[in-house]
Structure formats: C-alpha cells, structure tokens
C-alpha cells in the first residue's frame, strides 16, 4: 500500500469513527459540563384540570440549564411556559346559587421556575435519563362566559418528574425527547391542582 493510499485509509477510518467519538453528556467525571436545552412541549391536561380545558395544548416549551455535578448526575434550573385554551359553544358554569349556560372561553397560562436534577442511566450516543424538580408556578387565567370575563393570577408550588433521552448527533449537540408530568397547586375554577403531562422535543448543547 502506498503512502497516499495508507493516508486515505486512515482518513476514511477517522471520518467513519467521528460520530462514535461524539461523547454523551457526563460520561466522565473529569468533564462535568453544562447542558442547555430548549424544547417544544405538547401537553395533555390531567384529572380535574380536564373540567376546565380538556384539549391538548400545543403551545408550550421548556428551557433548561443542567450543570454536571458528578458522572451521570446533573443539577440545574428549568423554566417552562404552557398555554391552555379552549372554546366551548355551550358549557354550564356554576356560581354560588346560580348556573350559567353559555359560550365559554377558558384560558390558562403557566410559567414555572424549578430546580431540577437528572440522572443519566448509560453512556453513549443514546442516554436515557430520569429527573425530578420542584419550585414555583405563576398562573394566570381568564374565563369568559358570554360577555362576563373573570381573571385570576397566583403563585403556587410546583413539582415535576420527567424521563427522556439525549440522542447525541454531533460533538456537544443532542436531540432531546422527554415526557414530563407537571404537578402544581394552582387552582382554577373547579380545579384544585392544575396538572398535565407533556411531551417534549428539542435540542441540547453541552
């Protein structure tokens, strides 16, 4: 094999090996990097929140900052935004001593800020993870019944659990998919604890 052919073979081997060399996140205790992810979230209202809105929300997303603190372990902060909206041609709303049946427009917006922790189960380009978080949620709602509009806002406790995976597609770049269960103590009309399940898709850099 000539020198040129040998060099070409090495180059081909290196190129072929390049994706495999894109390490996953927190694979080494000596490289505890920071991960930033931005995801879009589709959310399904759960339990009694479905009495307020029961349609899937496609308006939501999360921004997370994860700091590596140990191999396979990160701590960080996350903020999310979700917008639930539904129009009812006719819906009955109960008030003290009264019932109103009318066209109803229900809206609820949630902005969370939580501390989060994640554990990465394995090394490699595909890294499943599980996580927990707790913090607060700012909630604003408005409900229009005929031409009567009632608004509210509050700040309440929030907690979450999530599970997903990082698909490393290049050095320091990953596609992130996850499912998030979000619990809040936010109260809407007829809802004691607003909560939903979200499916997330986005990108992460680390």
């Amino acid at each position, binding site marked *: 094999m000539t020198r040129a052919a040998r060099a070409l073979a090495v180059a081909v081997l290196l190129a072929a090996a390049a994706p495999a060399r894109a390490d996953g996140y927190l694979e080494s205790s000596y490289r505890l990097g920071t991960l930033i992810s*931005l*995801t*879009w979230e589709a959310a399904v209202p759960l339990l009694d929140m479905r009495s307020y809105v029961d349609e899937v929300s*496609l*308006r*939501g*997303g999360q921004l997370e900052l994860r700091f590596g603190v140990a191999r396979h372990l990160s701590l960080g902060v996350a903020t999310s*935004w979700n*917008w639930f*909206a539904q*129009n009812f041609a*006719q819906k*009955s709303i109960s*008030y*003290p*001593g*009264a*019932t*109103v*049946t*009318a*066209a109803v*427009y229900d*809206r609820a917006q949630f902005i969370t800020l939580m501390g989060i922790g994640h554990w990465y189960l394995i090394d490699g380009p595909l890294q499943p993870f599980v996580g927990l978080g707790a913090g607060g949620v700012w909630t604003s709602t*408005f409900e*229009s*019944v*005929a*031409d*009567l*509009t009632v608004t509210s806002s509050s700040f309440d406790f929030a907690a979450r659990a999530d599970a997903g995976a990082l698909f490393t597609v290049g050095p320091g770049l990953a596609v992130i998919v996850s499912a998030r269960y979000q619990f809040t103590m936010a109260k809407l009309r007829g809802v004691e604890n607003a909560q939903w399940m979200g499916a997330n*898709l*986005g*990108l992460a850099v680390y």
Partner: protein
Amino acid sequence: MAALALLAGSCGYDILTRNMVTSGTVATYHAPGAAFGSYGTFAIVDRLGLATDATPAPPFVTATGLVAHVRSSLEGRGFRWVAYVDPTTPPGGPVAADLAVNLTALEATQSAPAFWLGYPGYWQPAAFGLPGDSWSYPWSWVPIPAKAGTVLVEISDLRGAAGGHVEVLWAALGYAVAPGQNYDTAGVLAAVDQAFAQSPYLTTGGVP
C-alpha cells in the same frame, strides 16, 4: 431552531376571545335551601310584562306559546297548575296557589342587577293579589348585562309571603333569545328547556 420556531409561532394574539357570544346564554338562580318539594300548586301570568326604554311602549307582550311551555314544563316536574292571572286586571285577593310564576320581556339594555324592578311594565306581586308587596331575591346576580330580547321567568313563594315581601325562589334569564320581540319562537322555548334542564332540583320533592 425548530423548537424556537414552534414557540414563536405559538405566541400569536388570542383573538377568539374578543368574539363574545351572548345570544342563547341561559342563567338560572335558586334560593339557598329552597324546599321545592314542599310546594304543590302554581299560578302563572297569561302574558309577559315588558321592561323597555322605548316610548311609547305597550304594557305587556302576548306570548301564548311561551306561557303554555312554561306551564307544561312545571307540570312535567310535578307541580299542579291552578290559575292563569291577568296582571292588567289583578285578583282582589291573594291567588290560591303555592307559587307565582311571573314572565317578563326585557327589552332594555341594562347592566344593573334586577334593573327591571323599577320598570313600570314589570309585574309586581300585586298581579297575584298582593298589592303593596315587593319581590325579594335571596342571591347575588352574576353580572351579565341584559340585552334586548331577553326573557325572564321567576317563580316566587306566594305561600310564604310576609312582611310585604314575596321571596323569589327561582329565576331564569334567557339572554337575547327573542330578537324582534317575538317571544314565542323556538329559541325562546329552547332557552326555557335549558333553564329547566340545568335546574334538576326544580321539582316536587327537589332541594337544590
């Protein structure tokens, strides 16, 4: 970038909430703890009182279909009709019935709760043989402004009238259901049906 694009696209102004629909709204009210099961009979006006800002205004509206529909709806809930009342020639003494059913056409656009009490076309308890008495409402009104073409149905406690007051036990408002002051339309009757449907306690034997 895809996530950013999706987020940006979801931030549009939610303009749908600006298109409020009032027509067809039905509100019902009931006195707390009213024992509807203790009442057996009712008398009902044979025409609708009229609350309007227009002048000159007729003192009442004829709507035989609506009157009959309210009567049959109550009979369907187990109450027994005993008399029609002509408010323009009220009886000399109290009507022998447990409940008074009053019907009013609201053609004035007002946001004040129970604004109709001050309108001359609204039938007072005198229509049921209780001159000088006034209605009393034991609830807070949901502040939905009245629109033209609104129908008001009220059921009051004739048997318990005392101290110059006759308590209204149940009221229903069908907002803007009678355009053109026609109170015998299918829309009006449907509003009455909805009012009864959302008041399952309104029956002999019922308690809210």
